[in-house]
């Protein structure tokens, strides 16, 4: 419902990119999928180091939440670190929980 209202007002008033309280999946798509979606720098480079069919992070089942958070903050190989200004600790925790499918 909130979303519908935002769409209706979009042309008339300021609209934040993010609707209120997005979940882990939504945050992943907004903050990570530009590189870790079907086509992107992250998926392209991970496909060199693992089976291409699991190079997309959402298709992995070996990620722990702690690993996702560390990798994002320090950057892995060619991945730039994700700053806390871009993705807050609270947002990253939601993303990590989504990608780890419940593993701590």
């Amino acid at each position, binding site marked *: 419902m909130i979303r519908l209202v935002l769409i209706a007002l979009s042309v008339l008033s300021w609209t934040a990119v993010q609707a209120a309280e997005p979940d882990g999946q939504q945050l992943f798509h*907004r903050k990570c999928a530009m590189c870790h979606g079907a086509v992107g720098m992250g998926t392209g*480079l991970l496909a060199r180091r693992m089976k291409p069919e699991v190079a997309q992070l959402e298709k992995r089942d070996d990620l722990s939440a702690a690993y996702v958070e560390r990798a994002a903050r320090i950057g892995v190989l060619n991945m730039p670190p994700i*700053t806390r200004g871009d993705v807050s600790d609270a947002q990253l925790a939601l993303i990590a929980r989504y990608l780890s499918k419940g593993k701590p």
Partner: protein
Amino acid sequence: MGHQHEKVSHLDAKLTPPPTATLDKALKAMTAVVGSGAVFATEEDRDAYSDRFPIDPHRHRPFAAIAPTTAEEVQALVRIAAAHRVPIWTVSRGKNLGYGTAAPVVAGSIVLDLSRMQKIEVDVENATVLLEPGVGFFDLYDYLQTRNIPLWLSVPGNSWGSVIGNALDRGLGYTPYGEHTRNLCGMEVVLPDGEMIRTGMGAMPNAPSWQLHKYGYGPAWDQLFVQSNFGIVTKAGMWLMPTPEVVRGFDVEMDRMEDLGPLIDTIGPLRREGVLQQSPTIGNWFRAANILTTRHQWTDQPGSLSDEVISAIRKQFGLGWWGVSLRLYGRATVVQANLDILEKALNAIKPMSMKPFTWRPGDPIAPTAGGWMGVPMTFPMQSANWFGGRGGHIGFSPVLTQSGKLAMEQFNRTYARYKEFGMDYQASFAFGERHMLNVNAVLLNLDDPQFMKRVDPFLRTLIADAKAHGYGEYRAHIDYMDLVSDCYDYNHHALRRLNERVKDALDPAGILAPGKSGIWPAAYRKERKA
């Protein structure tokens, strides 16, 4: 290698950071404005806001970063910085890879990260958008797509960053709106003393034309906030492109190295006349291989890639020595007429191949075609892995004319230097409406210290060669801002002296991005290097 490669790197000199006690005090006052959840000052934060594609990763480490969410907070933070005389370095999203990422020129600065300012206001009828600096290309693209708004943006090869930030650094795309700084129309800016202004028609509070008329009345200030350190842009208007009825064109490959001149002399007149309205970019044989493969797949030999390897790469990807994607946008009947003119002109220079392209609304867009269709992308950054490990790129991008002869001469000089320094040649020639940018990428191998030692002397040589022929760069990495600004030296650096008179008048405390684009406030002027 010649003796000039062995001279001591100018990058070794350290810039003076402000005293830590002063920075601590300023940061404490800033935290009171934005809250502790928007202040980042751990060692990990300092690394995260440093340059990711650096020649020396330690040179530009900030003291902290702070992420306001409103323009009013920006005003308050600027006033605190001025009161404590601590330098702040503004980034829109901090993704300017190849030009310093989020890192400041002066180590120990506080990075003002505007990532969290993300408002979007689209005027569909007039094809404009008013944006805050934290809005990325993907954010704006998703916004338009999910609402079925028939407007396109123009995107750069790395679209991870900010729409406004890229325009403020004169970034480039590939559509008729590809010269991004030209799309700017009206700004809201916080000056170094904390005062807020609006430019152009925005100076009239009730004007309905802020995003429609670029100049207002009197001097037009928008470009003074581009590549400068005179203010912090907290909102800017941008023109968007109405979705065309059709996109058509040709993917053209030219077989020989010396075909560059005729190709430029064919495209140039059509661009100046307006038959071509996009910003065509001629690229060399390397443009697919460094994204899709690593160097080890082709050779174990050090030095520049040999002619044999170049032939193998060209064969695998079906490329000429040079290639260009030419696109026509708009009404079908007009595009058809222009396509006939384009086809005739291209046939006259006998391309190796010429593949037609057609897109109509509703057709799928291949990810690799996104650049010409305003679809944001990040896959070109896979070139950071060219050497198989940690890498990156730094650009060398002199402004040329649209002369095939002069461009060929510049290419020959540059290519010889790439071979001399053992670098793999990646270059493009990107058309403006009258000028042409020769965007060269130096691919980095951060895991090889010997290789990295050659990068700085190589870039300095390229910059000096270009300067000797009157070619200066349009944009620079934070390590080269002084050197590039130094090339613009008419009448004993009269332009730089004017910039610094303006800087001192607007920013007497010298807090806003000292050193940006070679502009130093009085307090830091001794830091200038070249």
